[in-house]
């Protein structure tokens, strides 16, 4: 599902004429791809969901229910039907956006996701922005100073971010910045005192509070999101900086760089303009994938920070065998991956002169 080769344009600076592909063809292609991918996704998750050795009726009625209550719930959940029939019913409903009701929350799955996804989206977006803002420059600096101390420093810093478990980092972060230093607010999205002030519009508190003009709520939400966002940002920074470094090294060894230098261009221009310009193409894919993986919901981060996001929702549903919720959540994650891939494809075409 990745978009093409990571080998950036070689021997050219990339500043040639941009040509957009025919829009209709792209849209049609995208729709077909989307449809097929979704069908595959639904099929696989549905059947995995049915072969796991967990009785889904238990999620609905619990362990103490009588035999009649149990049997009725089984029928209500449609589990008495043959498997293929269950699947058809499911696909038919999913096609019109009805993922059924979550057994655990008593809400339609769609409503649940509408509630939990914005929390994850807010966090993942901030995390990715931080990761990009710091990760790319760090990667470039590391590549330019390959083998010297700035490179080592970036490597160690990145390695830490990549290998230290988010769970632990989160707890230590809370301990230091929340409990000890009091720089940030604690777990959760908002202080109790600010509950029920802002009406949910987008579900993203930072945006909703701005819409409502409640600056105090906005500040409190910022204080709550800062630490988890920085931790996710660190994680994505580690990945992005390492990838940037390796892409940059590849570019810096190319002849066109030597040519540019010979032409007397400043080193800044050569590195940040020419080399980085070409690196942007594969980097878009890297960033998109890193963003998508954060949008799945970083379960451990969400647990430590009591962040009511998609990751906790899907994990919890999975453990309780709430299959409607799991399937609904999976479709959302699938949509995120597919659309980010489409987006990076599109950007790829925009950025890479050779992709026509």
């Amino acid at each position: 599902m990745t978009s093409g080769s990571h080998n950036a344009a070689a021997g050219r600076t990339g500043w040639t004429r941009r040509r957009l592909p025919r829009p209709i063809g792209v849209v049609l292609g995208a729709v077909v791809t989307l449809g097929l991918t979704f069908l595959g996704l639904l099929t696989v998750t549905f059947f995995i969901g049915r072969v796991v050795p967990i009785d889904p009726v238990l999620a609905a009625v619990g362990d103490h229910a009588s035999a009649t209550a149990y049997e009725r719930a089984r029928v209500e959940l449609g589990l008495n039907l043959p498997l293929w029939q269950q699947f058809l019913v499911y696909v038919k409903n999913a096609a019109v956006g009805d993922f059924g009701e979550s057994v655990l929350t008593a809400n339609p799955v769609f409503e649940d996701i509408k509630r939990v996804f914005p929390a994850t989206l807010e966090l993942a977006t901030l995390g990715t922005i931080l990761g990009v803002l710091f990760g790319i420059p760090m990667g470039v600096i590391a590549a330019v100073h390959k083998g010297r101390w700035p490179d080592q420093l970036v490597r160690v810093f990145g390695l830490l971010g990549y290998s230290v478990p988010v769970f632990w980092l989160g707890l230590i972060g809370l301990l230091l910045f929340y409990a000890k230093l009091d720089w940030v607010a604690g777990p959760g999205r908002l202080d109790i005192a600010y509950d029920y002030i802002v009406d949910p519009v987008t579900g993203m508190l930072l945006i909703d509070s701005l819409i409502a003009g409640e600056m105090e709520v906005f500040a409190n939400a910022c204080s709550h999101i800062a630490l988890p966002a920085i931790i996710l940002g660190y994680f994505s920074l580690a990945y992005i900086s390492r990838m940037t470094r390796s892409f940059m090294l590849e570019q810096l060894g190319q002849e066109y760089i030597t040519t540019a230098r010979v032409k007397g261009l400043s080193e800044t221009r050569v590195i940040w303009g020419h080399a980085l310009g070409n690196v942007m193409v594969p980097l878009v894919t890297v960033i998109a994938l890193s963003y998508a993986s954060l949008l799945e919901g970083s379960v451990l981060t969400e647990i430590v920070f009591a962040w009511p996001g998609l990751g906790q929702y899907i994990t919890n549903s999975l453990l309780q065998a709430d299959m409607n919720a799991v399937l609904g959540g999976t479709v959302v994650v699938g949509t995120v991956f597919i659309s980010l891939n489409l987006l990076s494809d599109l950007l790829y075409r925009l950025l890479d002169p050779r992709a026509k």
Partner: protein
Amino acid sequence: MRRLLGAAAIAAMAWNTPAAFAETPKDTLVMAHVIDDIITLDPAEIFEFSGAEYAGNTYDRLIGYEVDDVSKIFGVVAESWNISDDGKTYTFKIRPGIKFVSGNPLTAEDAAFSLQRAIILDKSPAFILTQFGFTPENAKEKIKADGDVLTIETDQVYAPTFLLYCLTATISSVVDKKEVMAHEEDGDLGHKWLRTAYAGSSAFKLRQWKANEVLTLDRNDDYWGEMPVMKRVVIRHISEPATQRLLLEKGDIDIARKLGADQLAGLEGNTDIRVRQGEKGAVYYLGLNQKNEYLSKPQVRQALKYLVDYKGIEQTIMKGKATIHQAFLPKGFLGALTETPFSLDIAKAKSLLAEAGLPDGFNVTMDTRNTAEITEMAQSIQSTFAQAGIKLEIIPGDGKQTLTKYRARNHDIYIGRWGPDYQDPHTNADTFARNPDNSDDAKSKPLAWRNAWDIPEMTKNADAAVLERDAAERAKMYIALQREHQQVSPFVVMLQEIEVIAERVNSKGFIIGPAFDDNRYYKVTKD
């Protein structure tokens, strides 16, 4: 790995003394809890710990009992009651002047409707009522309202407290008939609506439930009983205990409800925090499947009861969270047996195994849910079993997964926890000591069935106990039943659960009751 790092983080907390703490609002009680078990807010369906606690604080029942002495039953919605001479008809006089939050007056009609509704909906806890012979068909005929009187007619003469205790259960909560029926869809008696809404009359009312996130209750300012001091109660879902501890020490919550043994140990010496506990009804036990050729030998069952390090488990793994208990009725119940005849005794177990013709032990598996406490208990049991030559293989699994296997009788040994459904002794006798039909397609599948323990005699004794009208006599019957059960049953009852809360010292009055729906907020105050 995760546990190890968690421990490291907790160790790091040792140097942590919160700089300054943000206080919660004075009129709001804020708790950190694990509330992902709530799957419904309809009292006719609620059967989960957190859900029961919600209903206990938001709905009134006909009667209640003292949390310190459950034998003292008092009227709540019912002002008084009496039982007919033939012992089958119970009449309740409804207290005048109670209003639902909707403004509708609470009448005998609402009380009758609530019980009928629970029986007709027939959700998981419905058996608590239907065991008295009520069916969706006859509910309206057996449970009737007339003026301010509610009449309930049972199919047999039962011990009076049996029905009374069942009427204190969550399923017997009184709901607002008008309000509920206004939201009826396709004859569902308002069930779909009430799953996420509220129609009660008690001290607190529902403000908002966001699943896996927060449950907020507001004070019911029109409440007819003792008015709570707190205007609002916020229960936040914080699944990570280390996070709960941080929030508590920092003062962002008043009470932490789900701390592990290590967090509790870490709080010792913190003068801002008070730790309190109360005995709960749940028991931890091993279920030995009688389909297994070794476990079905009486001497083997007996031997295994001498191969558990009860003391060690109580004082380390379950420190502060459970006490040794070896009978199926938990302390606090009528007729509970408190004798603990078993302790770790390898020599005795070995001789019993030799008697059974298994001097070198045998191989057996145990399905173990992968939570820290259960896993550690299983490991302790594995090591003590090994001392008598029994090779125990632990099969870890997610809770629902191990339970699915257990319910299908496909286990050898299952390490489980069982909580009573209502305050009458029959609740546990019914499942541990009754098995009316041991066939694979039996209609009723109690714990005795799950372990394939065929006990026609004991089933009769348990049935007799539920019909005995004299309380003292009845208690004796349960004691006798448990003494026999303790020795011969395929259940190794090990511990009784304790609920622990950690609260900031300025918060007082949270009531830890014996059942999960007895945890009450109305007396909470904050200085």
